[in-house]
């Protein structure tokens, strides 16, 4: 009996492998086997014999079905089932593992016995299968979910590693950008300053006080204005006492207009002549001295000189240009 027991146990393991490969239901049955083993040991030997006989008969009839299904699905399912089995074995006791190791060298006789036992278990526990399926599915789903979650977490850890360098990179980039902006602003500021300097070149803010140069310029301008106003005064006061209706007064007015004309001609010609600087000096000195000394005498002298010019060249006075040239020549003669 001990020999039979030992022979039966490894055979069951082997049969489990084969059925799982063939059918999903068989895998469920295989999972249910351990409690069945306990029950069978308790029962009478006669019953056991009957069971063995039934299984042998069923085995003979099922062999054809298994052969038909195995070639189509055996290989891929085998791989998946092997992985599943290994996981299950890990979960279950270590003793089962040792038995499997023993199963490395299978025998046909053991296989037959295993199939019979499987058939019996399927007949006996048809109802139990329905009950166990949701639990199994939950567990498998849980396992799968756990695996997926774990894998996701592991995958997520990778971006966690990535976040660090990205953040540090961003920090560096920000620092670089700030530095660049500062540099650009400095450059722009300098460019603006240079533009302003160029624009303001030569632009001088005048002083609130008058320095010596400015005072000198004002005095020069004042002298010029005084000269002009005095000349205007002389020319215009000379005409006031005369009435143009009278013949004598008309004649005098004509004379004075001519004198004024000559005096006008005389002024612009003086600076134009560069050669007669001495003459200029003398005339300037005389003009400067005259108003201080005796205005009437100065007028008398000027009028006399102009009259002479007029008498000498009466024809050329008609045109302005000729008048100018005559004045130049007359001054040269003087």
């Amino acid at each position: 009996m001990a020999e039979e027991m030992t022979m039966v146990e490894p055979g069951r393991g082997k049969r489990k492998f084969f059925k799982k490969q063939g059918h999903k239901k068989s895998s469920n049955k295989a999972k249910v086997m351990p409690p069945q083993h306990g029950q069978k040991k308790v029962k009478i030997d006669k019953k056991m014999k009957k069971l063995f006989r039934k299984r042998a008969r069923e085995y003979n009839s099922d062999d054809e079905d298994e052969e038909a299904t195995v070639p189509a699905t055996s290989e891929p399912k085998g791989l998946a089932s092997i992985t599943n089995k290994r996981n299950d074995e890990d979960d279950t006791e270590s003793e089962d593992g040792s038995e499997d190791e023993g199963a490395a060298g299978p025998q046909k006789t053991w296989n037959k016995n295993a199939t019979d036992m499987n058939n019996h278990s399927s007949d006996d526990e048809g109802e139990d299968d329905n009950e166990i399926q949701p639990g199994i599915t939950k567990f498998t789903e849980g396992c799968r979910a756990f695996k997926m979650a774990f894998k996701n977490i592991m995958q997520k850890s990778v971006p966690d590693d990535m976040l660090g360098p990205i953040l540090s990179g961003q920090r560096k980039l920000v620092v670089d950008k700030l530095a660049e902006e500062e540099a650009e602003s400095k450059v722009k500021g300098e460019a603006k300053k240079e533009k302003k300097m160029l624009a303001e070149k030569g632009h001088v803010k005048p002083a609130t006080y008058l320095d010596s140069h400015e005072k000198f310029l004002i005095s020069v301008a004042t002298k010029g204005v005084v000269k002009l106003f005095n000349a205007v005064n002389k020319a215009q006061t000379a005409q006031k006492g005369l009435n143009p209706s009278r013949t004598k007064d008309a004649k005098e007015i004509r004379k004075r207009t001519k004198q004024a004309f000559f005096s006008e001609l005389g002024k612009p010609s003086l600076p134009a002549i560069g050669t007669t600087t001495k003459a200029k000096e003398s005339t300037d000195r005389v003009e400067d001295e005259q108003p201080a000394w005796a205005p009437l005498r100065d007028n008398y002298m000027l009028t006399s000189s102009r009259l002479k010019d007029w008498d000498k060249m009466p024809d050329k006075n008609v045109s302005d240009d000729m008048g100018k040239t005559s004045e130049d020549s007359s001054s040269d003669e003087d």
Partner: protein
Amino acid sequence: MRKKKQGFRRPVVIKKPKQPQEQPSVDPITGKKIPKSFVFSRGKLPAPLKQLQMDLRKLMLPYTALSLREKKRNNLRDFLNVAGPMGVTHFFILSKTATSSYLRVATTPQGPTLTFKIHEYSLAADIARSQLHPRCPKDLFKNSALIVLSGFVSGDPPLQLTTNMFQNIFPTIDVKTVKLSTCQRIVLLNYNKDTKLIDFRHYSIRLQPVGVSRRIRKLVQSHQVPDLRNLQDVSDFVTKAGYGSESEADEEAATVTLSSDIGRVNRASTKSAVKLQEVGPRMTLQLVKIEKGLCSGEVLFSEYGKAGGKGKSDDEMQGEEDSDGDEDEEDQDGDHPEDSEDKDQDLD
């Protein structure tokens, strides 16, 4: 208030139909042509130089285009074409380079072009800001300015040309018929032989009666009621001699006997003191180049190098090399030392 009033006057100057009526091209008295001018710029000018351009336009009033606009595409030929029918005789052209600014004074249509380097300049606003009492009466810019040339007596041909150019820019004055009330402004050009710089100044002319006490003069000139709290009688206001500045007494040479009444205070045949107050732009110029044509043609004078191809020309200038010019200057200085001391003044 003054600024607003100035603003009101501008459209009168701008409107074309009124211009021929108000601004004759020929002086009715002397028969001479009244010179007119355009002030514009070539190239892009920075803000201070634009303001200087506006100040120059004001200075040249009333015979100038105050609101002349130029575009980038405008050619010098365009201005020349417009100048012909409008009777414009002179161009003032402002330009700027990296080294400094330049002012060109040219006569249209074919006249010579004088190029001046602007060493320093101050704007009218700057000068007004620097004064305690800036002055800007209503009629200041209604008449053209007088011109005073000082120090241009050396006889150097470029200076002669400069003198003639500036004398002809402003209209001539007939001594017999001019009204002194129209003489409100004066432009001074002072040439310094040593530095070869020309000081350009613009003053407004003011006349004050002489021989009247300060209090009475101020009372008459301004319409404000005097403060009599410290006086016991009205006669005290008249009899007490108010303090006068020493400069007024010193400037006896600046007194003028007027031939006609000017304003409310200065009467005919009474003495008045001439007071000048600076207005408008101030420039320090240096003559750099003289070209025969309008910004083109033969270079008659150049400060920075010998002018090539100088020959006899019909112009008033005679072709002379720079070395000859220098020798002439030295000779004149040696022969006539008093010239440097006495600086003559030329008046239009």
